[in-house]
């Protein structure tokens, strides 16, 4: 069986996989990092989003063997070692942006990448369009949009258009 060596949340792992093994299967089944979820099998729902080399990717849509040498961050790797939540995690809690929690890891990982890629801030419409690849069935997205706008403020140290509009 092929071997793949990759770094996940700062730890390097060498794992034997089948050629058809997906990254999400490697994470969930080989590394027991079950915070990354599978919701649809057709790359529609985004529950499986992780970061690879700083970009958000759908881990159900990439083979494990494509990840040789990759640097992957999952939801488990976001909080500080002392348990302090990432500003995006904190904002999701503050704004009640999660209910059942199943889409949440992928939603948070997508949101962080979205904010990182928009250093000038995001409008509400940009956030909504930026979440096209993530499905949530519980919240109606409204509180997710608010949480991302608030986290963007904290992450960039400045005020977003949405936050200004809300004031």
């Amino acid at each position, binding site marked *: 069986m092929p071997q793949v060596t990759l770094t996940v949340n700062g730890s390097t792992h060498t794992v034997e996989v089948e050629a058809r093994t997906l990254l999400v299967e490697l994470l969930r089944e080989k590394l027991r990092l079950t915070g990354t979820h599978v919701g649809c099998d057709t790359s529609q729902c985004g529950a499986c989003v992780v970061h690879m080399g700083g970009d958000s990717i759908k881990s159900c849509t990439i083979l494990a063997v494509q990840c040789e040498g990759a640097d992957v961050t999952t939801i488990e790797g976001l909080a500080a070692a002392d348990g302090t939540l990432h500003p995006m995690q904190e904002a999701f809690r503050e704004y*009640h942006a999660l209910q059942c929690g199943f889409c949440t890891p992928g939603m948070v990982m997508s949101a962080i990448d979205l904010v990182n890629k928009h250093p000038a801030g995001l409008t509400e419409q940009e956030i909504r369009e930026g979440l096209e690849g993530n499905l949530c069935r519980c919240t109606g997205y409204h509180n997710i949009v608010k949480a991302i706008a608030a986290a963007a403020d904290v992450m960039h140290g400045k005020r977003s258009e949405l936050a200004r509009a809300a004031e």
Partner: protein
Amino acid sequence: MNVVQPFEGIGASVRRKEDFRFLAGRGQYTDDINRPGQTHAVILRSPHAHAAISGIDVSAAKAMPGVVAVFTGPDMAAENIGGLPCGWQIHNKDGSPMAEPPHPVIAVGKVRHVGDPVAVVIAESKAQARDAAEAIVVDYAPLPAVATTEAALSAGAPLVHDGAPGNLCYDWHIGDKAALDAAFARAAKVVSFETTNNRLVPNAMEPRSAIGEYDTTSGDYTLYTTSQNPHVIRLLMGAFVLHIPESKLRVVAPDVGGGFGSKIYHYAEEAIVTWASAKVKRPIKWTAERTESFMSDAHGRDHVSKAELALDAEGKILGLRVHTLANMGAYLSTFAPCVPTYLYATLLAGVYTTPVIYAEVKAVFTNTVPVDAYRGAGRPEATYLLERLMDVAAREIGMDRVEFRRKNFIPVDAFPYQTPVALQYDSGDYFATLDQALESADWKGFEARRAAAAAKGKLRGIGISTYLEACGIAPSAVVGSLGARAGLYEVGTIRVHPTGSVTVLTGTHSHGQGHETTLAQLVADRLGVPIAQVDVVHGDTAKVPFGMGTYGSRSLAVGGSAMVKAMDKIVAKGKRIAAHLMEASVEDVEFDRGTFRVAGTDKTKTLTDISLAAYVPHNYPIDEIEPGLDETAFYDPKNFTYPGGCHIAEVEIDPETGKVSMVNFTAVDDVGRVINPMIVEGQVQGGVAQGIGQALLEAAVYDASGQLLSGSMMDYTMPRADDLAPVSVATHTTLCTHNPLGVKGCGEVGAIGSPPAVMNAVVDALKGYGVRHIEMPATPAKIWNIIHGGRAMAAE
């Protein structure tokens, strides 16, 4: 110690306790659990809507790498395994029981819908099981299928079950037909309306999953499953399917990623992995792929209805006649028969004083996935029919649609209000929610916004729905008399530990609702224990005494009330202990949020003083009072609860594309007393999103041969962030009069009130095109055809 922060009690928007683990990726959903020696199951499913099976050859599959076992329907039948039971029996007009054909766990001899289980492969890995499933050879002889609700009763339609002639499950009615006919005879105007309530796929984001485990030493079974009601699954599967006593069967529903009704029911896969785990003597995990969810999770809605409203010359409603065809799918799911009857036709009075109602409901079998309760369950169907009809009628009699509603509202002083269709509403103020919503949505300013949109080439519309629902399900004796085969009480345990922290055991189940926070707030409010010291345990039959689960917006109204009863017992016992410790008479001891006090004195004991005394009973009246401070209560509700309110939708249509955009949505709901406003707002927003999804986007579509065309998230349109607009949520409270918390329930109101508001807005936007009605979902193609294709294509 025991000084409660005032912001943690009833009415505080406490941030959720459960969020830390979900946000850290440390939730534990069923598929996250792995048991030692675990194997993996893949279900082979029918690709045909209807076919006879003349043979199944599993020999090649059994020889595949990693395969542990392969089982088929006949293997289970040979062991006298029961079929999947139905939990509700409806009686026909003539008093005879409904047709209740068997529902084999794995098909025997015949498959009846695409997705019907045919075999299960158990292997060392899921990939190996999947490979082996492909090697099973099934000899199918395809049969003609009945794919639509309307086709089921037509002459010569293929029969889904030999035991259900004409594909009729039941022919039921409610109301006074003679009185209704008399009302119509004196009507100044009769308005008729026909509509279809589109079929939906619930699509909780977590696919269903189940792990069966058999302990060869003790003979005990454990089932981990994605369920809203683990005790119900234990009862149904243990007693009716696998014949395992409750004492030998533990059902665990850990973190569950959304349900919306679809995870109430007892499903085949739960029975398969539990039964087969004893065969292979190893744990077995099955997890649905999303396409499996589409063809095996119970679907929702799917009604075809005709309604007629009789009006007097002044626009007062004299009577309502309804005929509905309801699709049950290929088999009866657990609660399916009650949805289009007692959760639907009993709601047809809505918020109006309609004096006479007569409804006939025929339920039919088709070669489609079983249909059961989906968020709102029957009540969205009734509300949609009624609130679209109200708009159609208002326009036909030339009356303002708001005034027409107001004219027919149940007056504020008429409660308790007895409807002609069995229910007695306890409280409500429909005028108040209407006025608040009109104000909040700036209804008066709409025509200016319509004109502004028109100047930009857009068609803007506004729509309203004034609704109520019946939830807090349900009084056991009442539902028993209506055909329920279960009681619908709830159970709560309050366990005060020796040093004063509290564990709550609840028979309800949280799969997004936030019970770990809200129920802790009840304890903080009553017993004065900080919520950080209150843990809520649910979802495990080995820990929780009993329970009927979470659905029908019942967790607070029924489960919370059970907790209040249990806390009453804690306080009563605590007073007796406190009286002993303070050398006072019990009658003189008062209790308020954690402190027992001898009335009129400064003598006090804290709850912790009492709990310590109860568990270390040295100075204790041991002959009169048992040690310990741990109380359980069962609560059976006296009535349903009746949330209601007003939803207003504002939409804008791009005539070039036909796309409907949500511009504004206003919800003013009366959900009774609000425990956590933040959570209520979130529940309403989520429910409204599902309602907007039904109105504009979602439809489960079968072709004429019974193939499911919308079988993945690439084909079935789920609402995304940019399909929705902010939802303004407000509440106006009248208290429920018959439960101790005054709560009514908020989980379903969003999905119930919103679809007609949206569709009334869409029709309003298109009023220049002579459109009387548009069927859901209002897709761009439909709207474009109305605008560009003329009226013939519009009239679906």
